[in-house]
């Protein structure tokens, strides 16, 4: 079934068993993002130590794609240097906007590669990106804060 390209097992797994879906009480930055076209919402907390992402936690309502995507994101980015996280983010966004034209680098994107099928469903790209945009926003805020400290 064509749909299985979109809903890969990895995605359904993350959807049913979302990782880090419990807001941690301590964080450097907290953001709330909404997808205005469908009403999906996410809260995301981020902690950065010495340029390394030490924690990402989240809560929210949304479709399997948005939930799985943020769950995968947390597994992928926690422990990474912030610069490396940005490079992964860029590759993920490029993959989403590729309309299925590029395969994506599995070595870099790991489980996130399972979301490649989303790029063929334009209306769902925003779902996949919701958590990533929240992360990006939070990281900017966290870094600005660390400069002030």
């Amino acid at each position, binding site marked *: 079934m064509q749909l299985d390209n979109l809903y890969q097992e990895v995605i359904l797994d993350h959807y049913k068993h979302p990782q880090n879906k419990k807001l941690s009480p301590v964080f450097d930055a907290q953001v709330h993002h909404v997808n205005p076209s469908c009403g999906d919402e996410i809260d995301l907390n981020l902690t950065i130590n010495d340029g390394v992402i030490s924690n990402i936690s989240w809560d929210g309502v949304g479709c*399997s794609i948005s939930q799985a995507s943020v769950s995968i994101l947390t597994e992928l980015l926690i422990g990474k240097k912030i610069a490396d996280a940005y490079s992964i983010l860029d590759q993920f966004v490029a993959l989403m906007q590729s309309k299925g034209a590029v395969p994506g680098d599995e070595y870099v994107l790991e489980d996130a590669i399972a979301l490649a099928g989303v790029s063929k469903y334009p209306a769902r790209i925003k779902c996949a990106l919701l958590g990533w945009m929240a992360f990006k926003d939070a990281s900017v805020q966290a870094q600005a804060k660390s400069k002030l400290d």
Partner: protein
Amino acid sequence: MTFDPLVIRKDFPIFDRKIRDGKRLVYLDSGATSQKPSVVIDAESNFYRNHNAAAHRGAHQLAEEATEALESARSVVADFLGGATDEIVFTKHSTEALNLLAYSIGDSPAGNVFHLKAGDEVVVSEMEHHANLIPWQQLAKRTGAVLKWFEVTPDGRLDLSDIESVITSRTKIVALTHQSNVLGTINPLAELVKRTHDVGAIFILDACQSVPHMPVSVAALDIDFLVFSGHKSVGPTGVGVLWGRASLLAELPPFLFGGSMIENVTMLDATWAPAPRKFEPGVPNMAQIVGLGVALNYLTKIGMQEIHNHENTITKYAISKLREIEKLKIIGPTDMKLRGGAVSFTLGEIHPHDLGQFLDNSGIAVRTGHHCAWPLTRKMGVAATTRASFYLYNTLEDIDDLADGVRDAQKYFA
């Protein structure tokens, strides 16, 4: 002529195409936009091929023909609504028509029947589409008027229990939807219009979801303004209608300014042509207006009552089939006396986006989300719903496919 959706479908070329690698198109998204019959598509093409020129702007034959085509469409719309020809203003869609009203009301000087001063009240409801909510929020901000609203009951009806405290002697405008695009609820207009006129206010009807689907007569409803969109009424995209009582249109200030809406123009000032012209500056969306005329004639020929009866049959069947599905919850009234052919529902933990995607994969087109009525979905306690909406070309088979699709989705995401 007996009503047969299978015969009607033949008029709509889109049903000849296939979805997602060869599946039959089950189009259950007419609440968002309707499909178009060939006669409408051809009317637009024919206008361009044979009569295209700037209407009301030339003494040559093509301009005469374009003008004639435009003005006959206006009288078709007037007849369809039971209004007068000069009471029909063409816009690009209902959204523009509602904004026209809100801006023009906001521009009405003291002494004008539409003038709003701080403390005057404008009434809407919690079930309004954003197009019939945000323009009034903005009007309230510009004028200092107060925005009030009817709440929605848990079963999806307007709560009229406190009608006298919502519509009061301070009320100037009441703007309500005829049928909710999310819940399907049809509102009890008689009581609302009466109360509105009793307090001397003006009643504006958002008829986007009713005019395409049932007989609507502005005279019988005794309302003051009505808007609807061509694209939801088997007509072209890019055309909407504002109907207004002649006496009120005469008093309402214009909204968009430009060519052919004027009486006289100097560098510093201008005066206006009579309605409807004063509301229609610029070269009109002529081909679309002509197409809309043909669309309404098409609907009239089939019969608005017949269409309504058919949708009732379909909706009743859909509700009964959907209610059999475990965890499926219909958001809105299930009593057919209170509703039209838009059915929203949730399906346990399965997100509408996922359900919609799954159905799409089977060729079934539904809409998911807040349907541009976000305060309403919030009020109903849901983040989003899946909506199936019906029209003259839908069949009981479409409903069976929908119900089967929903069950399959349940298995898939289990």
